[in-house]
């Protein structure tokens, strides 16, 4: 029901020299379904925040105007529903039903209408649990669905979704997309940000591509945009559908055995798992949400003590430490041998600037300062973070943060690299660079384990796959309280 008009819109975050987004002229009629594309850092999330009226005047500088039905978005918030890139930070209440009701209470919806609307919204997104389920007990995918229900219950005229399926397993992603499709009324305007274009196309009838330096690069129906600009967009980092990537398989046979897991587990998070990692080999770990992939990654990374089974490092990886399990190694020794990339990049940051973040590992493992500088500069250039060297890691865009977290693990040049979802939220250009980077490392004799839902990444890089199943719930524990 809501139309959007942007005139020369721009926003610069406080403390940044560059504009996050600039010179955007755009008109979206009510009822349109728009896919918003653009390379990582082009300002997509910033633009959505502006439309939701969530860029406070004291947090940056604005240029031009935004209007929703002729109103400043900061005044017209009741027309807009938004689901952020990170669902965890937008749940407000302790129980799921209360969380959906929260927005309705704020809007002054009469008490007797609230619960029917809550139930309706939960049903429309296919939420599997009762209203009383604690929000803390939800997996990432379920949180995403709940956040969507919270936005839909408000019956917004304009629905803004920022990568609503990043981090979901393929089945979960399909479910959320069908929930969105089923939940939209004919007159709801939708603006969707999603890097994986092919999956998002059934939901939209228009594509808008933001230019990294400012302005709108392309705008029109999906067919027209990809027909006219396909090559240029692909070169710029947009996932143009129908373009395959050349695989980069190992050219030589795997080398030394690095790490062996024997019935390695951590009940109830991870069932006993057998696994061997060799040098010069890329192993992909797959499985549905909640199967214990991240837990396995932390165990292999020597960051969690195993709850069962054994993890043995070989002499080529650990030298004299080969007899002690990795979780007992001193941290500097660990960092020099096994690098870990966490699922949530923000969990990985420990310093105040991008530069220090990259320099920390090499410094701790005792490299001389000039060498540290060279390593850091090289990584900054390679992952296109050079302009952000002085920025605080927590102010990066989703994709930039992910690149930085991968780079920090690469900085100590560990023999074994363990990455949890290294490619989510990446534009095509960075994605290709990451594949190249990992492939080069592997060919230089490093071992690589990646936990991922990204089928294309597996197809392009993995030499071997391991699929985890969801651990069966312990007898006696109810598997959620379905209504």
């Amino acid at each position, binding site marked *: 029901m809501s139309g959007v008009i942007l005139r020369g819109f721009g926003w610069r975050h406080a*403390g940044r020299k560059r504009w996050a987004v600039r010179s955007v002229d755009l008109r979206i009629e009510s009822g349109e379904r728009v896919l918003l594309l653009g390379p990582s850092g082009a300002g997509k999330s910033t633009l959505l925040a502006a439309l939701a009226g969530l860029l406070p005047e004291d947090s940056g500088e604005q240029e031009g105007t935004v209007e929703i039905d002729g109103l400043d978005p900061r005044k017209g918030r009741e027309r807009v529903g938004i689901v952020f890139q990170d669902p965890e930070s937008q749940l407000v209440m302790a129980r799921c039903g209360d969380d959906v009701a929260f927005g309705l209470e704020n809007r002054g919806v009469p008490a007797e209408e609230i619960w029917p609307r809550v139930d309706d919204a939960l049903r429309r997104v296919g939420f599997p649990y009762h209203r009383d389920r604690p929000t803390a007990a939800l997996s990432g995918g379920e949180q995403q669905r709940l956040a969507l229900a919270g936005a839909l219950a408000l019956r917004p005229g304009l629905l803004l979704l920022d990568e609503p399926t990043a981090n979901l397993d393929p089945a979960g992603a399909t479910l959320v997309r069908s929930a969105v499709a089923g939940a939209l009324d004919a007159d709801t305007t939708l603006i969707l940000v999603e890097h994986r274009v092919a999956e998002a196309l059934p939901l939209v009838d228009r594509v808008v591509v933001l230019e990294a330096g400012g302005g709108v690069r392309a705008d029109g129906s999906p067919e027209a945009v990809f027909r006219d600009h396909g090559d240029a967009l692909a070169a710029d980092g947009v996932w143009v559908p129908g373009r395959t990537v050349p695989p980069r398989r190992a050219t030589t046979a795997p080398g030394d055995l690095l790490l062996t897991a024997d019935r390695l587990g951590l009940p109830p998070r991870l069932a006993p798992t057998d696994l061997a990692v060799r040098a010069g080999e890329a192993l992909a770990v797959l499985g549905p949400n909640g199967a214990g992939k991240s837990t396995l990654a932390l165990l292999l990374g020597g960051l969690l003590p195993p709850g069962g089974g054994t993890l043995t490092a070989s002499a080529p990886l650990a030298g004299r430490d080969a007899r002690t399990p990795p979780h007992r190694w001193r941290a500097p020794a660990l960092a020099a041998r096994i690098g870990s990339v966490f699922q949530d990049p923000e969990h990985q940051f420990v310093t*105040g600037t991008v530069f220090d973040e990259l320099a920390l590992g090499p410094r701790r493992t005792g490299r001389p300062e000039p060498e540290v500088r060279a390593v850091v500069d090289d990584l900054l250039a390679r992952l296109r973070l050079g302009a952000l060297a002085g920025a605080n890691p927590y*102010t990066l865009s989703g994709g930039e943060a992910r690149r930085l977290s991968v780079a920090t693990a690469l900085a100590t040049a560990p023999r074994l690299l363990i990455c949890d979802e290294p490619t989510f939220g990446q534009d095509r250009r960075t994605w290709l660079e990451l594949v190249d980077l990992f492939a080069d490392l592997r060919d230089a004799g490093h071992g690589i384990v990646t936990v991922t839902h990204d089928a294309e990444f597996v197809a392009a890089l993995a030499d071997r796959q391991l699929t985890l199943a969801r651990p069966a719930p312990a007898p006696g524990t109810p598997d959620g309280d379905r209504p």
Partner: protein
Amino acid sequence: MDNGNRWRTIDIVVASVIAVAFGVIFWAWNLVWSATEPAFAFFPPAQALIYGIWLVPAVLGGLVIRKPGASLYCELVAAILSALLGSQWASITIVQGLLQGVGAELAFAAFRYRSFRLPTAVLAGALTGLSAAIFDFVYWNKAYDLGSYRLPYALLTIVSATIVAGVGGWALTRSLANTGVLDRFPAGRERAAI
């Protein structure tokens, strides 16, 4: 600042978060306090030296939020949370939290919520310590000897509050501002000016 005294959502939530973080610390601190009580028994007034931790949110809240009521709110919510988590002193904690918050609040009010520098913080620490000491003097320590226990205990409480809560709270605010998390607060914006 126009309508400067109205609390924005971010003021309320961040004040609550500060209180909650310290509520958890209190909960742990209560256990430490109980555990060290027999150990300090031979000169119990010395225990007052670690008292100041309980008073940090009052000063920190005032320095970060800079609105009337912030000290009181932070200290009170922290006390309520530690009661919810299962403090051994339960409802008394809440009353203490209220009184301690009032102490720091008076200091900021004395400067009409315009000064948030070290001297103000020190005064806030001292006053919150004073209100804590008065409560303990009357409530907890009534049966003890005046000269050898009640007075030294009260004085040490105030000293501890001045140093740990006053100076400590001020230093903590500065370190927080340096990380950039306070950018949407006046306390964080002063950083950019430096």
